[in-house]
């Protein structure tokens, strides 16, 4: 992944709905065009967060498996 995140949220070891809430809070504070990256270990968030990104019309850059956690990267488009 060569997109640099403007905001990184480390929500590892936080459980549903915590990581999604943190992501939406970051989304609300971010400017249009900025990239938000969230680290999580929670199983539910891996589905919930991409679903939220798509439903709200943002850009899902990707979901990446990392060492012991995963990373969801999105761009705020509106």
């Amino acid at each position, binding site marked *: 992944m060569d997109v640099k995140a403007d905001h990184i949220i480390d929500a590892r070891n936080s459980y549903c*709905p915590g990581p*999604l809430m943190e992501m939406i809070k970051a989304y609300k504070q971010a400017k249009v065009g900025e990239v938000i990256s969230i680290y999580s270990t929670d199983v539910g968030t891996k589905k919930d967060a991409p679903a939220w990104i798509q439903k709200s019309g943002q850009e899902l850059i990707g979901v990446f498996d990392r060492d012991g956690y995963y990373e969801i990267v999105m761009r705020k488009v509106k």
Partner: protein
Amino acid sequence: MPKTMSIVLASGTMDKIMAAGVITSGAVADGVDVNIFVTFWGLLKFRKNDNSISKLSYDGSEMSDLIMRKMSEKHIQGGIEMLRTAKEVGNVHVYGCALMSDVLDIKKDDLDPIVEDIIGVSQFVSMTEDSYNTLFI
């Protein structure tokens, strides 16, 4: 106009308060506004400095120790904290029940600051007119 959901939270057990917190979180993530009317045993647990949300409902009472231990080990956010987070994400309004406040001499200042007002049931019911559903927890 955003959709609205209403919740009557009458229970003071951990699982029920948490259910209100989780459902409210899901609602605000989906752009739904939430009005919550806290009454009876729920209202007791919204008093400031009341850290005694330590019981489960009867259905889960035999697993109480295990659940409480797991929740603590995994640092699961409590129901009221979930509501606080949900309020940062979307429109969440929490009201205390006037009747229960009178019965127990609870003033607004005695309650957690997330409770924005003490209102009567008819005011709450009028809010539910525009809700697409109302849950009783």
